[in-house]
C-alpha cells in the first residue's frame, strides 16, 4: 500500500508541471474576439477565402493566403482583415489594414499554428459590413509546444 501511494504521488508530481502547457492547447472560443471586432454588427459568411494547407507537417511555418471578393475601389473596399485562431495562445494572429489604394484584397504570409484547428479570417468592408471565411488545418507538429 505504501509503495502504491508513493508511486501515485510520484506520478502526480511528474504530471503536474505538464498541465499548464497542456491547458494552453485547449480550444478557445473566438466569439468574444469577433464581437470586439464587429462591435456587435452581424458577421456574414462568405466573400472571404482563407487558404491554408489541409495538412501541415510543421506548425511553426504554415503558408497562408487570404483573399476578399471586393472591387477595391474608393467607394467599395476592404478596410481590414483579422486572422483568428481558436487554439493558439494568442488568438488574434494578425490584423492587416488595407485601403482604397490597395487594388487587390489579397495577403499572403506564413503563420504559426499550435495544433490542428480551424482558422478564421474576418474582413471589415468600407460599408461597415463584416464578412468571414475559415479553413480547417491538421497540424502534425505543433508550434509553441516543443522546447527546441
Amino acid at each position: 500500500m505504501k509503495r502504491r501511494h508513493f508511486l501515485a504521488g510520484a506520478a502526480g508530481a511528474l504530471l503536474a508541471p505538464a498541465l499548464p502547457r497542456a491547458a494552453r492547447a485547449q480550444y478557445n472560443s473566438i466569439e468574444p474576439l469577433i464581437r470586439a471586432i464587429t462591435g456587435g454588427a452581424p458577421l456574414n459568411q462568405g466573400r472571404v477565402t482563407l487558404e491554408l494547407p489541409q495538412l501541415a507537417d510543421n506548425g511553426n511555418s504554415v503558408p497562408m493566403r487570404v483573399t476578399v471578393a471586393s472591387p477595391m475601389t474608393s467607394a467599395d473596399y476592404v478596410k481590414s482583415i483579422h486572422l483568428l485562431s481558436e487554439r493558439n495562445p494568442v488568438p488574434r494572429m494578425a490584423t492587416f489594414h488595407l485601403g482604397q489604394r490597395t487594388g487587390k484584397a489579397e495577403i499572403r504570409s506564413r503563420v504559426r499554428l499550435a495544433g490542428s484547428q480551424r482558422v478564421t479570417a474576418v474582413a471589415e468592408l468600407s460599408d461597415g459590413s463584416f464578412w468571414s471565411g475559415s479553413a480547417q488545418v491538421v497540424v502534425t507538429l505543433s508550434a509553441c509546444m516543443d522546447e527546441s
Partner: protein
Amino acid sequence: MVARVQIPKEAKRGELIELRIVIQHPMETGYRHDEIGRLIKRNVITSLLCNLNGAEVFRAELSPGIAANPYLQFYTVAEASGEFEFSWIDDEGKRGSERQSIVVR
C-alpha cells in the same frame, strides 16, 4: 535587422503591383524555454507599416502567430513614382526600415 523587399523597379500608372517583404527576426513566442528551463522572453514584430511617399499603403499588426522571419505579400495600385518605405518595431522597441523606389510611367 536584415530585411529583403521585393517590388517592381517600374510600373505603368494604374497597374497592380505586388509588394513582398521578409524580415530576419526570431518572432520569439514567449512560450519556449531555454536549455535550463527558463522561459524565453517574448519578442515579436508587433507592427509593420508600408508607406509610399509618406502616405500609408498597408499596415499590419502581428503576433507570435506569425512565423519566424515574417513574410508578407500584398498589393497596391501604382499611382506615382516615389519611394516605398517599410518600417517595423518589435517588443523590445527595436525598429527597422527598408526603402525602395519605383518609377511610374
